[in-house]
């Protein structure tokens, strides 16, 4: 698709969509939202980019190498956070008592909840984008 109006509006809208997605992810433990919802918003911005420009441009924006690294590392972070509790002498994925948790309502409250939400959000965004670009850019027989 080659539409100047759509492309200009997409260029203007994309940062706002992405900032909103990051807000939903990072504030997921304080306000409604979380990793899955925010990651989908974040991925939707790149899907919008792929629809208004072309799939190749979106793949240049988010290449497969980066997708592989993000997908692997976010699951690895999840498992390592869980194993850290075992290292400290508690059960797998134990939170309070192992990880520091400042006063309720602040950004870094809740121990590992915020880092895990961040990992989930980045992973969901990566999955949505990679699935879309590969399924949409498939070779036609």
């Amino acid at each position: 698709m080659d539409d100047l109006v759509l492309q200009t509006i997409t260029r203007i809208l994309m940062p706002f969509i992405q900032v909103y997605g990051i807000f939903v992810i990072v504030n997921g433990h304080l306000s409604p939202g979380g990793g899955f919802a925010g990651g989908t918003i974040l991925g939707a911005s790149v899907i919008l980019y792929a629809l208004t420009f072309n799939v190749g441009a979106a793949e240049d924006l988010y290449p497969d190498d980066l997708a592989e690294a993000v997908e692997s590392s976010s699951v690895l972070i999840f498992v390592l956070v869980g194993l850290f509790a075992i290292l400290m002498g508690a059960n797998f994925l134990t939170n309070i008592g192992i990880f520091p948790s400042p006063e309720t309502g602040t950004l870094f409250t809740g121990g590992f909840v915020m880092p895990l939400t961040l990992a989930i959000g980045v992973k969901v965004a990566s999955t949505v984008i990679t699935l879309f670009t590969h399924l949409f850019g498939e070779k036609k027989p």
Partner: protein
Amino acid sequence: MLRQIAATILILLLGTVLLYMTSEMPRFGDPGNPSNNELSARYTDEVIEDVNVPNIVTAIITDYRAYDTLGEATVLFAGIVAVLTVLAAHSDVGRGTKKDG
């Protein structure tokens, strides 16, 4: 023709059974429902002591049931591995060229 009649009778029978089962279900919003047990009250009452997070949904997803979420992330990982394995060979298509669809 006979097959269609048999299928219709079977579907009607099945629908009757399902409707009958639905009528036996607990009333919507009844405080005595099995779903309104002490578990949800436990979550809403002690989420601050347990997780120290105001959003109970996130607390359940990433703390109480973090193991389930780990499995969910693994499902996403397996899905993306499958897609990259099967479709990554075609990823050069569409790069820089104009899409016809």
